[in-house]
């Protein structure tokens, strides 16, 4: 009976979403306040019912209700409780419900956060979010009902995919979805502006915190995914350019471009139609990702069970949402175009270049991801596009972008003469060149040209990001103005970019990777460490059996650590899983993964020493934290009347 309540709650939510998607928009069109007023209660009610449905599904998992098909397919009574919760979003149907829950949560947040906005505008935003919600709820109820019954009930469940039985994967989907779905909010703001036919600088100020917030979640979500792939897939890589990864990365790139173009629109009132287009593109790319991952249209290592019928449905949804908004854009955007000049050396022109480069990178990733589909559809053969393509086409726009970041932060709006900029940047540039060229040789003995370029660029970004904060911290009496939270956020986020580049460059250049064969009792040298294969034995987990190797790691006569990598076989799904053992450190990770038995007690082993790999995820976290600071800037909460004052002050503000 309880699962039916969940389904009924979803149907009620759909009813409320239909109301939210129509009446407020009509109310805004006819200027009828009695109609627009329905938006908030409808959105709130929708959240309540979606939440109820979600709780019902959690309840079914926690109580091992194997009469529900989705639970029987993705859980098992022996599954540890945290993973039963994670199993709720462990496959297609439940993750879609999570998607909808998060959308309704963002919508709820908008109902609260939009109180200071003009009534009609807020109604339009909520109306657009309602349309998205209607689409997703229909999708769930018509093609992917998580509450579908299964008669007779199964005695035992089929268990959660062992790859997903991992702490990183418990948090990864909700955070990533919060980012994906959060982009619906700037999208709704953009469509509302197109419907209104007006776009004030206020609009950009309202949109910015929502964009930054979802970008923040997306950043952390992607980082978590990469971290999980690193330690769970057993290969020791952190990014594979798999279609699923690209699906999350493209909205991030577009979202990053949007954050920067919103800054220009807010401060200078230009780039308006471009900003709108980016807002539409960012959310469309996250819908596109959903389509690519769930339709089976591309081959991916971690795709959902795919189904052409579902694919068709999301495609229709994509057509309605993206096609609809782009059509609206085609008719309305020209009314929003404003001519505004700026000089070559100015904040605007740097942000323009930022946007161009980010869009080029997005397009390159999109093209590479879809290229196999293009060829196949044209009957020109079957191919797959791998990391060499992506690394190359991604690096080409990103390298100049990283160089420009350091300069752009220190420019002012409208115009700036090159001289003070050059003077200010001489110091960070000098530091970056000196340390960046010398240290790789001191620490690692050798360096390729590309490595040096990467390290110097990374240090350049870090040093130029720290320039202003350092002045404030160390020369209190001489600094003219305290930094706003927005500025702190900007500098920090950019520093995160630098930290990330440093980690990525050093890890890719100096990883020591060996595949070897060993029997217990063997000793051998990897890099500066000596490994001793002490023992191998069988152990019993809660719902798996494992073979666990025990390795001592010595540096000289000092025992560094004992590592215990496992090879697990989960009892229900019997697929072998590699659990790498990692000795984590700021300077380097030492990674051991157990391969296959080679007979005569010998095992194949993969041992890797990965310097600075932690910086990759640390960089992402710093970026996200910068975003958090930027959102907390008080200016987003103050209703301002004087819009132009920031310009007249010629301040340095950005983020």
């Amino acid at each position: 009976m309880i699962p039916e309540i969940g389904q009924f709650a979803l149907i009620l939510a759909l009813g409320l979403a239909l109301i939210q998607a129509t009446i407020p928009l009509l109310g805004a069109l006819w200027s009828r306040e009695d109609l627009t007023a329905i938006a908030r209660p409808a959105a709130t009610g929708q959240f309540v019912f979606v939440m109820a449905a979600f709780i019902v599904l959690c309840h079914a998992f926690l109580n091992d209700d194997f009469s529900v098909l989705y639970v029987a397919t993705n859980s098992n009574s022996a599954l540890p409780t945290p993973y039963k919760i994670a199993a709720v979003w462990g496959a297609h149907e439940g993750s879609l419900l999570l998607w909808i829950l998060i959308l309704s949560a963002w919508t709820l947040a908008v109902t609260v956060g939009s109180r200071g906005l003009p009534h009609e505008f807020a109604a339009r935003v909520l109306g657009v979010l309602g349309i998205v919600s209607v689409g997703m709820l229909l999708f769930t109820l018509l093609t992917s009902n998580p509450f579908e019954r299964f008669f007779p009930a199964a005695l035992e469940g089929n268990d959660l995919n062992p790859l997903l039985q991992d702490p990183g994967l418990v948090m990864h989907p909700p955070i990533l979805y919060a980012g994906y779905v959060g982009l619906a909010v700037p999208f709704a703001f953009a469509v509302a502006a197109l419907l209104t036919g007006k776009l004030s600088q206020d609009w950009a100020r309202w949109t910015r915190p929502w964009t930054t917030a979802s970008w923040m979640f997306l950043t952390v979500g992607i980082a978590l995914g990469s971290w999980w792939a690193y330690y769970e897939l057993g290969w020791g890589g952190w990014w594979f350019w798999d279609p699923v990864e690209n699906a999350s990365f493209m909205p991030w790139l577009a979202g990053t471009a949007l954050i920067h173009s919103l800054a220009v629109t807010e401060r200078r009132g230009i780039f308006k139609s471009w900003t709108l287009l980016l807002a539409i593109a960012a959310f469309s790319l996250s819908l596109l990702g959903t389509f690519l991952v769930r339709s089976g249209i591309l081959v991916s290592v971690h795709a959902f069970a795919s189904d052409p019928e579902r694919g068709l449905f999301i495609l229709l949804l994509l057509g309605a949402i993206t096609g609809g908004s782009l059509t609206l854009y085609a008719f309305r955007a020209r009314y929003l175009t404003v001519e505004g000049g700026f000089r070559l050396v100015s904040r605007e022109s740097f942000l323009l270049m930022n946007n161009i480069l980010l869009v080029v990178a997005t397009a390159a990733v999109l093209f590479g991801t879809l290229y196999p589909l293009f060829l196949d559809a044209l009957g020109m053969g079957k191919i797959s596009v791998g990391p060499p393509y992506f690394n190359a086409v991604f690096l080409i726009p990103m390298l100049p972008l990283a160089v420009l970041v350091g300069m752009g932060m220190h420019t002012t709006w409208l115009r700036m003469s090159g001289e003070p900029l050059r003077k200010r940047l001489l110091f960070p540039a000098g530091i970056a060149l000196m340390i960046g060229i010398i240290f790789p040789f001191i620490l690692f003995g050798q360096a390729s040209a590309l490595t040096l370029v990467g390290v110097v660029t990374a240090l350049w970004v870090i040093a130029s990001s720290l320039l202003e904060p350092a002045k404030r911290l160390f020369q209190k009496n001489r600094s003219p103005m305290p930094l706003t939270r927005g500025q702190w956020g900007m500098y920090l986020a950019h520093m995160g970019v630098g930290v990330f580049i440093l980690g990525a460059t050093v890890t890719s250049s100096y990883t020591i990777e060996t595949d070897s064969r060993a029997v217990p009792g063997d000793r051998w040298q990897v890099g500066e460490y000596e490994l001793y294969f002490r023992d191998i034995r069988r152990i019993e987990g809660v719902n798996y059996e494992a073979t666990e190797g025990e390795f001592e790691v010595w540096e000289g006569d000092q025992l560094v650590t004992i590592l215990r990598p496992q090879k697990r076989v989960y009892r229900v799904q019997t697929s072998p899983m590699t659990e790498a053992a990692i000795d984590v450190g700021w300077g380097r990770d030492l990674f051991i993964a157990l391969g296959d038995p080679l007979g005569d007690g010998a095992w194949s082993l993969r041992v890797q020493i990965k310097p600075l790999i932690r910086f990759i995820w640390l960089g992402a976290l710093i970026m996200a934290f910068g975003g958090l600071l930027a959102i907390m800037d008080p200016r987003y909460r103050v209703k301002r009347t004087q819009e132009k004052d920031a310009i007249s002050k010629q301040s340095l503000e950005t983020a």
Partner: protein
Amino acid sequence: MMWRYLIPISVFLVLSAFFVKGLSLNPRYVPSPLLGKPAPEFELPRLKDPNLSLGSVDLEGQVTLLNVWATWCVGCRQEHGFLVELSQENNVPIYGLNWKDDRNTALDWLSTLGDPYIGSAFDELGEVAIDWGVYGAPETFLLASDGTVLYKHIAPLTRDIWTSEFLPRIISECGSIPCPIANN
């Protein structure tokens, strides 16, 4: 209307056309590189009698089917009934490649479910299967009398697939059903 505002929607429409087309394609289907080429030479012990061998020479001179099967493979059990049916029609000789299997289990399987094969080669270590590019049983190869691979089907063979994919190829290869057997 300014044309540049139509660019985004146009790009989107072109992409959508590809997506619509893509939904009916199977990205996981990779045609065998062996198509139209001579099948790899092999010689293995026979399943029923390890002292006798079965190899490329036995298949030559006639259009044949080579079916890769194993007792651990669920799809093989699904298609087995149809293979037995097909063998009774006497149109095309069917040979088996018993892949990474246990000899006794495989013999039991044939005696209980029926044996559609003229003979089965016993590829215990899967070495021949690697040469043939087998990555999942069941797979069925259609071979011309000179040993050229005419067609390869992955997944259980059914009457529908037989009629739509195999029969036309056999007819165009030898002009009639059953194929006239070459004298050599």
